[in-house]
């Protein structure tokens, strides 16, 4: 049933008893054209675009837990395309354009709110870097506005602009088309849309092995039995290295963790996404009213999904220094996601050396914003066998050939990003 004002009204009269299950719960078939490993946002958008744009409908998405239960449900929901490197401009802007039409396209309200994503500058060198980034963005057709100190103060009145401020604000760079979205809805919406096109979404189905015949991947072994596939698409974020190892591959990825936390819900007080050029602190307010905060990654390899408190303390201290009125809020929850940190901070969308096995990973801690673009480009590669021009720089072998896309410019140390 289409979600619409009319159907909502009709179901309202009928006691909301007629809504169908949003997606089926099928048993896996013995063979699919394409098996996508990983039922997060990227895997589900991949399956959706395979069916919607390329007519490949004999597709399964295998999820070891429940869909959207990994990093799709563990991020700070920020969507933006304000990067410096041209390759990342193309990728993130393709993605942002898809966000702008997403709710209509999949008939599911993902609550995408283009409230503006602001980077604060705290020094002359911050402002210089922000001006350079803004110019680079505009040169590639992406919106960016450099803001003065007074403009920032007017936009976010709660910022500490006093002479004794711990982090004095000199100005900022805002991307007004940036914002936030309801992260769970992205997974649910694409699952429902893909399911309606015939994609099998199979939850509680963990991949435990990859079958190989003569150097070609021919299927996966799962906790629900063996499933054959013409093509196998890895899309598992933090566990990319473990799944690739099933086919004997070593990846340019280390799995770290990133924490985030939310306060109790309060009335609207911050209607912009606040980030800063010098600090590592993200502040936004969800539609429920919670203040959503994020900070540094924990900076060591781990699959624990459990971080250390001093990281939270640092992010909270920075947030309080920027917005002192947050100090009386109680924190409700904190959590962590396993992030697949690549060695240049940029993702990988490519074939692997194993025939029939594809990789979409290495999104570090910036994958949520790229969800629709990632699926769009991966589906293009899986369906056509060609690399989309936007995905072309994100090769698996770019480290050995020296073609890294090093946005922060810190070299091959994932913990320094």
């Amino acid at each position, binding site marked *: 049933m289409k979600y619409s004002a009319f159907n909502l009204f009709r179901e309202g009269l009928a006691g909301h008893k007629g809504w169908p299950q949003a997606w089926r719960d099928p048993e896996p078939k013995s063979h699919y054209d394409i098996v996508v490993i990983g039922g997060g946002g990227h895997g589900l958008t991949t399956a959706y675009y395979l069916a919607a744009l390329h007519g490949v409908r004999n597709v399964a998405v295998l999820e070891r837990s429940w869909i959207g239960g990994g990093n799709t449900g563990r991020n700070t929901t920020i969507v933006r395309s304000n990067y410096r490197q041209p390759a990342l401009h193309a990728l993130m802007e393709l993605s942002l354009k898809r966000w702008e039409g997403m709710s209509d396209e999949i008939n599911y309200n993902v609550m995408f709110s283009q409230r503006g994503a602001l980077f604060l500058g705290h020094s002359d060198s911050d402002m210089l870097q922000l001006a350079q980034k803004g110019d680079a963005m505009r040169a590639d057709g992406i919106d960016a506005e450099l803001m003065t100190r007074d403009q920032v103060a007017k936009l976010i009145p709660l910022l500490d602009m006093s002479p004794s401020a711990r982090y004095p604000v000199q100005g900022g760079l805002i991307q007004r088309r940036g914002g936030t979205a309801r992260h769970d809805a992205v997974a649910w919406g694409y699952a429902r849309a893909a399911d309606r096109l015939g994609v099998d979404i199979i939850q509680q189905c963990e991949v435990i092995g990859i079958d190989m015949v003569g150097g070609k991947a021919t299927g996966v072994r799962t906790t629900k039995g063996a499933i054959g596939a013409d093509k196998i698409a890895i899309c598992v974020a933090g*566990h990319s*290295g*473990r799944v690739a*190892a099933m086919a004997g591959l*070593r*990846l*340019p*990825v*280390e*799995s770290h963790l990133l924490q985030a936390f939310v306060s109790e819900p309060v009335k609207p007080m911050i209607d912009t996404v606040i980030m800063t050029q010098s600090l590592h602190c993200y502040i936004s307010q969800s539609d429920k009213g919670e203040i959503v905060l994020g900070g540094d990654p924990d*900076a*060591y*390899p*781990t*699959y*624990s999904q*459990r971080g*250390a*408190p*001093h990281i939270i303390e640092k992010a909270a201290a920075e947030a309080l220094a920027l917005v002192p009125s947050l100090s009386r809020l109680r924190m409700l929850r904190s959590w962590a996601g396993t992030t697949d940190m690549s*060695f240049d901070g940029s993702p990988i969308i490519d074939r692997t050396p194993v025939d029939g096995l594809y990789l979409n990973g290495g999104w570090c801690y910036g994958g949520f914003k790229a969800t629709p673009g990632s699926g769009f480009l991966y589906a293009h590669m899986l369906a056509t066998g060609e690399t989309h021009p936007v995905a072309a720089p994100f090769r698996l072998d770019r*480290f*050995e050939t020296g073609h890294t896309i090093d946005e922060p410019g810190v070299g*091959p*140390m994932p*913990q320094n990003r």
Partner: protein
Amino acid sequence: MMLIPCPHCGPRAQAEFTFDRPVEAITRPDGTAPELIRNLFTRDNPKGPSRELWRHTYGCRSWITLTRDTVTHAISDVTAVGASQ
């Protein structure tokens, strides 16, 4: 938070330490190009025990190697780098 037993200082809070790299990723100048690329840019990335190089950066500043489980964070076999020489 992990409690890391520094061979020089005893058990200290994780916040005093920085992770550097897995021991498998330590590069030597006499390595061949494929070895360097493998060690610099790819990882075994184990889910379980991992032998790692850390530094007691905000303590005695010495380098240490330890075995750490990447799921439970249990730490064992901490040794000072160079202790055997």
